[in-house]
């Protein structure tokens, strides 16, 4: 592997969630100064906007085909970007939101480019997560906040902490083991509800959230009971937020230890 190879580079940047609102100056400059730009964005209008920033913007959209494994699609996306890096181009991958948040392709492309000796890095962007904290008035530090890819909660035995916020991504395709579908139906969401019902009462409030992608839009904020989540309309762009269901429990043993330490250092406790 040639660690000193100089030409050919990759940067993955985020366009943020809302057209015109979130793109930072550094990310914009990377786009403008690249030789080739690849794009995986949230909607067609945003793609039109990006097309104005560079003469050679190549959409990664055509790689998605319902019925084909998304994993194959992801590899094709990585391959398309790396081919240009290897050809000596300065490549910029543009992703909606934050390029490293619930986004496998940019991480993998950067890792592979680095392994081959090319300069590759990521610039952060404003993700759906950032928008939801603002739009829903949530501070992840208040009670803590767990994030899961929704299917992972079904495929694996995960430990949910119902005293913290729980944020579920990709609920629109929850339970799709084939990775070939763009949506799954209410029956799949019912399995998710059943899993969540181990930790939450069915009348517990859940929030269906969708950040605005165009500045003319308002965010979707819909509060419903967990019990009817399966029947709700949830697409690819929705994120589900579950507020804490129980108060945090004090840990007397640890508090006693801390009190003893306080006494030892002469602190009033």
């Amino acid at each position: 592997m040639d660690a000193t190879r100089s030409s050919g580079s990759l940067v993955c940047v985020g366009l943020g969630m809302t057209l015109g609102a979130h793109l930072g100056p550094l990310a914009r400059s990377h786009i403008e100064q690249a030789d080739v730009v690849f794009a995986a964005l949230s909607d067609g209008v945003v793609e039109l906007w990006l097309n104005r920033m560079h003469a050679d913007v190549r959409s990664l959209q055509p790689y998605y085909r319902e019925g084909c494994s998304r994993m194959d699609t992801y590899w094709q996306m990585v391959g398309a970007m790396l081919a240009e890096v290897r050809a000596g181009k300065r490549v910029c991958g543009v992703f909606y939101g934050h390029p490293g948040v619930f986004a496998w392709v940019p991480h993998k492309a950067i890792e592979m480019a680095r392994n081959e000796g090319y300069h590759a890095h990521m610039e952060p962007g404003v993700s759906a997560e950032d928008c939801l904290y603002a739009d829903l008035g949530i501070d992840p530090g208040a009670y803590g906040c767990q994030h899961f890819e929704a299917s992972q909660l079904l495929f694996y035995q995960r430990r949910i902490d119902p005293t913290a916020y729980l944020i579920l991504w990709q609920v629109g395709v929850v339970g799709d083991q084939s990775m070939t579908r763009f949506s799954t139906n209410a029956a799949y969401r019912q399995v998710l509800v059943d899993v969540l019902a181990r930790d939450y009462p069915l009348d517990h409030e859940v929030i269906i959230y969708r950040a605005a992608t165009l500045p003319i839009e308002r965010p979707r904020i819909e509060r419903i009971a967990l019990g009817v989540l399966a029947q709700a309309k949830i697409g690819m762009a929705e994120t589900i937020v579950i507020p804490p269901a129980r108060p945090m429990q004090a840990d007397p043993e640890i508090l006693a230890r801390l009190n003893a330490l306080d006494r030892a250092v002469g602190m009033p406790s």
Partner: protein
Amino acid sequence: MLDVIDFMERMGGDAQLSQASPSELTLALADTGISTELQSAMLARDAQQVEMLLGTKAVCMLVAPPGPPGFGPHHAPFPVAPPPPLPEEEWEQYQGEH
């Protein structure tokens, strides 16, 4: 003369315009060269209609794999989370074999 993309870029980045009331938005749109059809879609905050009028379509936007167990190294040559633990009998059998 601003077109719809220029206008939305400006709107997204402008403190006042991004919070505009319907009448302020109507006024701001009147100064542009945007078609009346598009203007009404924007005033109705109807993103789908805007998409349709611009001839763009909804896109797939999933780039994060959930990594189901057993998806195999060919399909998931990334550090997948380890598969769920085997049921107890299978585990004993597995240990016996190894």
